[in-house]
């Protein structure tokens, strides 16, 4: 559904509307907001310079909402007309070791560092505790790189407490995590490598989700944690589809997909499902996240190479559910541009740099050009079959 763009008399606001809902872009705050129908109507009335009483009277002429309801919505909407800029910018979301990055660091020959590369960003990693170092270097061996200079040096030190060992992680001399038990270390390391890899690249925007080369095009699987992205990604990878990433859909300024070659994290609920395709899962070490979830790591058979997106793209937000669903019909729901943006940002996103009107229009244009759907399924066969149908 194409969006209609309306510039307002308050020139720091721009409206985007479809048939049902809208968004407003606040130029000085560099912020984008979703609006239901009533808020669009109120914004247009306030923009005419009317005071609260006049706005309510005007809208009440054609709205079925009560005066009390209109007043409540008005009070939520009117702060949008504050033209003051935010005190922080998008660049403040960069990780501190990037903000302080000056130059690469030398890695001494025969030093106790394991060196690796992710999306042309280089790392040297060491750990005082040998078993941990062995686990990390073994797990990351597919991205080993023989390099003398690295962007980031990650060091894991050990502290012995009365009860157990605890670990501290520093990156380029900055302490980034502390008081970690053994089981939590590797997920933190993998996450850090992933995030530093895309943040150090020339990216425009990234979303939480998987990006896969699918048939002669690209499949984007955004969504919240637990929705089934990683399991689907692992299954697709096993079927011969190269992976860009199972965690981060990172788009460059030219809308290329960044390939972040790191192992896929599989949560415990999918281990038995994936073991036939990935026998190494059976004996893989179990790691943990602070929220209690257990996971294991697997490597897909092939990664995609960074490339300009020129083939067909489909965005499918997986929604795994245990509810009983008619096996012949997994549910697919087409998403509008605004609904897609809501889904993408709610699941997790990051902008590299300031959000200008021109940049926003490019992002909207990209989403509008890509068919977007939410897929609800309860078995992997359902999901794979539905993806095939959506691709036709």
């Amino acid at each position: 559904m194409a969006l209609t763009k309306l510039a307002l008399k308050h020139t720091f606001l721009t409206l985007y509307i479809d048939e049902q809902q809208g968004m407003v872009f606040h130029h000085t705050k560099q912020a984008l907001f979703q609006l239901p129908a009533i808020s669009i109507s109120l914004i247009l009335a306030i923009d005419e310079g009317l005071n609260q009483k006049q706005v309510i009277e005007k809208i009440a002429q054609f709205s079925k909402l009560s005066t009390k309801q209109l007043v409540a919505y008005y009070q939520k909407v009117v702060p949008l007309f504050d033209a003051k800029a935010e005190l922080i910018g998008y660049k403040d979301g960069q990780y501190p070791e990037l903000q302080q990055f000056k130059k690469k660091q030398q890695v001494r020959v025969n030093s106790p560092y394991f060196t690796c590369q992710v999306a042309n960003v280089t790392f040297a990693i060491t750990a005082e505790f040998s078993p941990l170092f062995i686990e990390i270097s073994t797990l990351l061996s597919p991205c080993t790189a023989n390099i003398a200079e690295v962007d980031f040096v990650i060091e894991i030190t050990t502290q012995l407490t009365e009860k157990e060992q605890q670990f501290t992680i520093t990156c380029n001399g900055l302490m980034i995590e502390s008081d970690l038990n053994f089981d939590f270390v590797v997920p933190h390391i993998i996450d850090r490598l992933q995030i530093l890899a895309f943040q150090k690249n020339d990216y425009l925007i990234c979303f939480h989700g998987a990006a896969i080369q699918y048939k002669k095009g690209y499949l984007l699987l955004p969504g919240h944690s637990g929705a089934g992205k990683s399991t689907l990604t692992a299954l697709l990878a096993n079927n011969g589809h190269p992976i860009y990433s199972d965690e981060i859909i990172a788009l460059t300024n030219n809308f290329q997909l960044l390939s972040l070659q790191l192992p896929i994290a599989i949560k415990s609920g999918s281990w038995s499902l994936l073991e036939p395709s990935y026998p190494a899962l059976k004996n893989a070490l179990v790691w943990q996240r602070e929220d209690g979830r257990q996971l294991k790591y697997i490597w897909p058979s092939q990664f995609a190479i960074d490339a300009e997106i020129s083939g067909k793209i489909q965005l499918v937000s997986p929604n795994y559910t245990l509810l009983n669903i008619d096996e012949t019909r997994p549910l697919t729901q087409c998403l509008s541009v605004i609904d897609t943006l809501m889904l993408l940002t709610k699941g997790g996103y990051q902008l590299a740099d300031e959000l200008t009107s021109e940049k926003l229009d490019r992002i909207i244009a990209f989403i509008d050009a890509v068919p977007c759907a939410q897929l609800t399924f309860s078995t992997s066969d359902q999901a794979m079959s539905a993806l095939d149908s959506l691709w036709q």
Partner: protein
Amino acid sequence: MTQTQLKDLTTTKGVEGTTDQERRKFMEKFGKLALVTPVAVTALMSPHTSAAPKSCGGNGRKKC
């Protein structure tokens, strides 16, 4: 890559009156459409919510 059809109703070549009329038309249209909704304004993107996406948390949380 195709471009979205962004119909900009406030082009510099547009007639001021027409633009105001179009705005009033949308004001009435969305006023009539309006239903009770729990949230009047939802932040989609802002410097406060932009953060490296991580598996263990939604946006706004920089750490697990």
